[in-house]
């Protein structure tokens, strides 16, 4: 029973990861791609790790299950932080927004500062 639930969670997780990759290919610029990459990949990876945890608790391998839960917590904390660092670094390095973008108040701030 727990094995079935685990496999379902892993499958759904992989599906979300694939969606994140499709977004990475289709969306136009760095910032939009980061959106797809962080959201889908965070949930996808967490679901895979939760699936492993369910299978681990079900088959008595508690060590494996606890480790995957801790990894899920770390992914939840580090993934948005990494995306934030990448977005901020790209903007500081002068990577332009997609030409269809409507507003850039961060650029305005940078200009008033300098």
């Amino acid at each position, binding site marked *: 029973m727990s094995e079935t639930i685990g496999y379902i969670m892993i499958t759904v997780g992989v599906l979300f990861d694939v969606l994140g990759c499709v977004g990475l290919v289709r969306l136009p610029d760095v910032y939009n791609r980061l959106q797809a990459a962080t959201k889908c990949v965070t*949930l996808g990876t967490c679901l895979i790790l939760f699936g492993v945890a369910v299978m681990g608790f079900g088959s008595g391998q508690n060590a494996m299950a606890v480790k995957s839960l*801790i990894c899920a917590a770390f992914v939840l904390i580090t993934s948005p932080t990494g995306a934030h660092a990448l*977005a901020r670094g790209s903007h500081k390095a002068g990577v332009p927004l997609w030409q269809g973008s409507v507003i850039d108040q961060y650029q305005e701030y940078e200009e008033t500062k300098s």
Partner: protein
Amino acid sequence: MKAIIQFLIMIALWLLLTWSLQPADVIAGIVISILTVALMGNIFLDKAARLFNPIRLFWGILYIPYLLWYILIANFDVAYRVLNPAMPIRPGIVKIKTCLETEMGKTFLANSITLTPGTLTVDIIGQDLYIHWINVKYDNDIEAQSYEIAGKFERILRRIFE
């Protein structure tokens, strides 16, 4: 006091990761935890002790399913935008204001914003957050933007961290 809390968190994490209580493992864990606290102690949050207040803990635990629900919505939102052939996006970087004062509260708010539908934190400067929004709805209306993006998290984060 701060160092003791840090040490206890580190050793708990070590024991959970190694999942063994053999003397060699435990001693290695104690040594590594002390080293970590000594080297990295200064970047730990300032008022850690007050997070163990039961009311704050209660709101903290309540926050986890709340956040997971918004992460789930975010994923379907991204899936819709990515799979739609017309790709309905209207991106831009907007500025919002937050009422949270503590560093920890702002960090959690920024990370939560990144994980929720269509928004990505680019930078935090004082009380201003710069957000990349995949579907900008307002033209330069900071109040409305702040409420739409951060309001739902500030309600709970204020009770945990402030």
